[in-house]
């Protein structure tokens, strides 16, 4: 197993090994190197759209995210516990 999509509602998958840009995981071609345990987009995601993992909302996209891109703190933002936004 090289990656896992936890829930069918998810728009991200988690890698189970260090992956290289250009590598094909399922029907997704990675656009960047992605470290083991990190997430990549399994579909195009628009800025402001919910990021879904475990079938639940984990964050919002802070910019447009192309299918195959690394999804992490550089392009998604947690919604909860954001005292800095108060």
């Amino acid at each position: 197993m090289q990656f896992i999509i936890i829930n069918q509602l998810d728009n991200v998958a988690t890698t189970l090994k260090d992956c290289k840009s250009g590598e094909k995981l399922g029907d997704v071609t990675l656009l960047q190197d992605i470290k083991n345990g990190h997430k990549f987009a399994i579909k195009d995601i628009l800025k402001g759209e919910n990021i879904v993992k475990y079938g639940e909302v984990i964050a919002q996209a802070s910019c447009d995210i192309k299918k195959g891109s690394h999804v992490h703190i550089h392009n998604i933002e947690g919604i909860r516990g954001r005292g800095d936004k108060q």
Partner: protein
Amino acid sequence: MKNTKILGFRREDNSFGLRNKVIIIPSVHCANKCVENIAKLNPDSVYITHQHGCSQLDYDAKQTQMVLAGHGTNPNVYGVLIIGLGCEVISADNLAKNIKENTPYKEVHHLIIQEEGGVLNTTKKGDAIVKQMLLNAQKQTQSFGDWSDIVLGTECGGSDAFSGLSANPALGAVSDFIIEHDGSVILAETTELIGAEHLLAKRAINEEIKNKVYSTINNFEQLVLNSHADIRGANPSPGNIAGGLSSIEEKSLGCIYKAGSKPLVDVKEYAHKITQKGLTLMNTPGNDIEQLSGMVAGGCNLCIFTTGRGTPTGSPITPTIKVSSNTKTFLNMQDCIDINAGDILDGKKTMEEKKEEILEFVIKLSQGELTKAEINKQNDFSIWRLATTC
């Protein structure tokens, strides 16, 4: 796992200790050094030190008292020596009295440095008391218990993206097993339920518990919001983020797996005694050691602690089994981690097999096998602070 018996110490109130510790506790940080002196002379005893006990506002002092007393009353403890200074908010005699009232069958002693004429005199007297208690503790006979005697504290720390895929679901299966066998399980780390509260609330046995789930988690989040700080960086921590976790919601949704799937029967404040069979939510911070100390004070006699990045954490009195979420961390920190759940992701073990492996280890540790944290004498202790000192 049927017909297998757990070995331990049946206390007079029917609680059950997997260990039979003699613990030395300072009522105030001014007594830390004296406690260390006595402990050095008695390597079979355990001790804690802390930075509290004086100049604390009443609600914070109450919390300190509750955590210290809870370490004395925990069923894994045979006897207690409290060392105080004499002028502090949390007095040694009051703390000793508190422990004795709740667990009258225990040996509870206290010494006050100002009354004994200094640290050397107190150390000498304390040494004699602890030596005698250790002898007395050895005379306690062990008896058989069962899974209903377990009060399991669940914990995850140094989480990574695999925690929610391997170690936490494996611990969740253990939690379900213990509840099916009439034991108690604690889910804590309120911070790490932010974003997953709706999943927990759905499992509440009634409206009152459901409302408590929401209010406990909302109140905690409000504390963060009121601070005007961004929770990210504190939780998820830099290590969590390096491990692939991007937000508190993502971390929470992985965390909650360790509580299995059974109904939530109770919600308790930090360090309050667990009184129900089944799953209880205890309101604690996500901070590993503050959480562990709170659960131990609540009577937890066993802790299972999942970790992605690896952690040495242990309690002075409650055996703490470390389960790694991935094989790399297990191999990297073999001196700290007891069980590898990474082999589930490696395709070598099923979740069911991992559950059995953890339960078998619990039986072994009840029969005397030590956890890695115990071997390392990883006697961690800290208290969730609520207010400033004055």
